[in-house]
């Protein structure tokens, strides 16, 4: 499968166009807003869908993010890339939504995922998905923003509004935890498959 439009690289190539669009949104240009919405929808959906268990909630949060973009476009000072600014809004919305997302729903989703994994030989991506769910939200965000959205560590620091050293430290510990979790989960799944066979 082709990787998603690697957020950051694609954004860097089209940055001037996006800045112009955002300025037009600040002047309340609905056509510019529609264009910006369509450009960011796939990337934001992918990012939010991976972070939130519920697809409908991801779309709802995406609308919340873009509504803030409409309201606050004039506040964009141009200190960072447009993509960092928009993903910064998405980051905060995702963290709030993840906290509010009911524990029950998350457990249902996790249960269904575990069953799906148990029904067939485990693939690395299934194990990865399960392992990511075991990370704390701040560790997971750094991993997702790096590998899924393709942001640099400086951009992630701007998105998460924290020092670059904090981003590096979170990634360091997330990697350590993934290194521990992936073999453990693989072992468990192999056992399950063997039992079924």
């Amino acid at each position: 499968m082709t990787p998603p439009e690697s957020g950051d690289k694609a954004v860097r190539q089209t940055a001037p166009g996006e800045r112009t669009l955002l300025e037009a949104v600040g002047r309340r240009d609905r056509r510019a807003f529609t264009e910006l919405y369509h450009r960011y929808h796939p990337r934001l959906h992918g990012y939010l869908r991976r972070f939130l268990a519920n697809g409908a909630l991801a779309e709802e949060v995406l609308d919340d993010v873009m509504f803030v973009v409409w309201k606050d476009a004039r506040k964009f000072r141009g200190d960072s890339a447009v993509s960092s600014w928009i993903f910064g809004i998405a980051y905060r919305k995702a963290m709030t939504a993840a906290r509010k997302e009911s524990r029950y729903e998350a457990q249902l989703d996790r249960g269904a995922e575990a069953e799906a994994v148990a029904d067939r030989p485990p693939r690395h991506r299934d194990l990865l998905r399960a392992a990511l769910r075991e990370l704390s939200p701040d560790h997971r965000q750094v991993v997702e923003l790096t590998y899924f959205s393709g942001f640099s560590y400086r951009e992630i620091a701007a998105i998460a509004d924290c020092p670059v050293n904090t981003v590096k430290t979170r990634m360091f510990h997330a990697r350590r935890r993934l290194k521990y979790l992936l073999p453990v989960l693989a072992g468990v799944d192999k056992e399950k498959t063997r039992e079924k066979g």
Partner: protein
Amino acid sequence: MKRDEGMPHAQAQELLPWLVNDTLAADERRLVDAHARSCVVCRRDLVELERLRESFSESADPAGVPAPDMRRINARIDALVERDGRFGQLVAGLRDSLARPWRLAFAAQSLLLVALLTVLLWPQPATDEYTTLTTPQALPAGDYLRVVFDPDLDAAATARLIDGLALAIVEGPSERGVALLRITPPAGGEDADALAARLLGRPGVLFAQPAATAEP
């Protein structure tokens, strides 16, 4: 193994994920590359990280991205525009009233009423629950420590501080250095209090205490 080329090993290790996602600045990339060429550990980690990146690409779109549907957001923006429009009309009306004194008194009274209603009916923003380092928190089964590291420490220095102790960072450190550490058995016979005391004795640890857990 030769580790003295390019940049220090710990610094190169921290940057490997962004070498793999190709977002390092040219000079950083050159230094990390130079180090990795002479470091077996970094080369092995690069292979693992590349595999991780590929797994992300494979699982990039699990349920498919739905077509953008702007009906809901357009309705919200329409409502906002309408509200802003009404406010604009109110301002224009006031301007008109200034030309006629008897209307001015009425407009001032109306404005006062609107201001009063706005204050009374404006939805209050939800405030986040205030928590402290010792506030009980719902956590998965196990023993945990709440630790505050010196925020100026880098990842390698933080890792060195817990070296040799049966501890793993599971959350944080936050911007202020607060982290949650899980006690990984076997703890060498040491309980949470003893581990916290040992950590506190290490320079760079500002606070360490067993985390109080609440019922989930």
